[in-house]
């Protein structure tokens, strides 16, 4: 099974990656039995599949994603939710009573699971995981950087939560809710998230973020002028 790239190499759309079409993973496409990159990104092999990790790009909803969205319209059949994506999602309700019981207004922020995504549009699920978010700061980051913000088994996000004392909710679509005991701690967490977004692919990021957050929480004034949050 020949591979035509170096691990972690930056590839371009149309670059030949492999001869084995069964190994086509995310960020690739197959023509004439060969695997090519379809986006700019870092080529890698994961679980025997050739994948291109996108560096930047739009959020593509997939069934099972936990997302945070903003209610943009209320209709008889359900609630339209903005996901910061190319298409709005629909949270379907069975009847008017259920719609009323949700108690949602335009502009409300919700947390929900994507039930399906396809030609019928994006549908959200109304299950026990569904939540209306009542307080906190809403941030948006590039959706491709969400895995890095969470870290391996949640290491990064848990570290930020622990140091700042904030509760942080991350939607797969790149929306993040930070809710903390004081403005200082919320600011520290938000700054850390911005730092991760800026330096997603640098090494030793966890240590760097830890030092950064600790300093901010310690009350030392280290106002980042690049930060507009």
């Amino acid at each position: 099974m020949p591979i035509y790239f170096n691990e972690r190499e930056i590839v371009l759309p149309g670059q030949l990656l492999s001869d084995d079409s069964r190994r086509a993973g995310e960020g690739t496409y197959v023509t004439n039995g060969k695997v090519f990159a379809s986006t700019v990104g870092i080529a890698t092999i994961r679980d025997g599949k050739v994948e291109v990790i996108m560096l930047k790009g739009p959020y593509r909803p997939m069934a099972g994603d936990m997302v945070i969205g903003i209610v943009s319209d209320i209709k008889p059949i359900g609630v339209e939710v903005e996901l910061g994506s190319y298409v709005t999602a629909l949270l379907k309700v069975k009847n008017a009573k259920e719609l009323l019981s949700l108690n949602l207004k335009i502009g409300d922020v919700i947390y929900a699971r994507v039930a399906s995504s396809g030609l019928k549009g994006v549908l959200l699920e109304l299950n026990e995981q569904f939540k209306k978010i009542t307080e906190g700061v809403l941030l948006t980051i590039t959706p491709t950087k969400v895995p890095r913000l969470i870290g391996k088994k949640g290491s990064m996000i848990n570290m930020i939560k622990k140091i700042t004392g904030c509760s942080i909710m991350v939607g797969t679509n790149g929306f993040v809710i930070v809710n903390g005991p004081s403005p200082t701690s919320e600011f520290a967490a938000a700054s850390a998230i911005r730092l991760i977004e800026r330096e997603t692919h640098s090494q030793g990021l966890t240590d760097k973020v830890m030092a950064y957050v600790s300093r901010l929480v310690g009350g030392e004034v280290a106002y980042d002028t690049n930060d507009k949050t």
Partner: protein
Amino acid sequence: MTQTTKPKLIDENGRRLDGRGPTDLRSLKIEVGILEKSDGSAYVELGKTKVYAAVYGPKEAHPKHLAIPDRAILNCRYHMTSFSTDERKILGMTRREVELSKVIREALESVVFLEEFPRSAIDVFVEVVQADGGTRTAGLTAASLALADAGIPMRELIAAVAVGKVDGTIILDPSDIEDKYGEADMPVGMTPSSNTIVLLQLNGKMTKDEFKQGLELAQAGIQKIYQAQREAIRRKYGASTTEV
């Protein structure tokens, strides 16, 4: 620049007006990701021709009835700024610009995986800030880079260059004067690896052999431009991803 008589476009030594040989490109400069507010952007400079391209989206298609249920729509606007030419160009879209917008859009549609984003729209803006021949090809080169920068999945990048015929010689990358006083001008847009032609136009007269020769010359130029495109992307993303 009010020349009324035709200047000698190729001298005794086979050099062109700006000192190039017949098969030379002008100096090429490509940058990616330069416009902060766009989702993807690129800048291409080919001699005195300077072009910006910006991509916004995919986003919801407006008005909604234009949306297609199983794929995205691609909107493209090729526009020359009024100060880009010797004589001030009138404001708004001229017939020529409307046509070039369509030609560039169709070239891009052939490489972008539009079916990945149903019911949405992708906007591509090509803005010429200085025109000296070959703006549609520079615009297409920039637009494909901007799409790649926006993270939109596509089959391949597109590189494009024009070939011309002046004083009986086939030349690569004609400038404005060569285009005006030459016998033919042929913009070519191709995907550099699979060599698929996505844009081909011809103004003027060429024999069959000249056409073949011109196409080969364009192909060689496209490979050079593709190398510059690759370098530009690696420069933009390589710095932030040295090691992970």
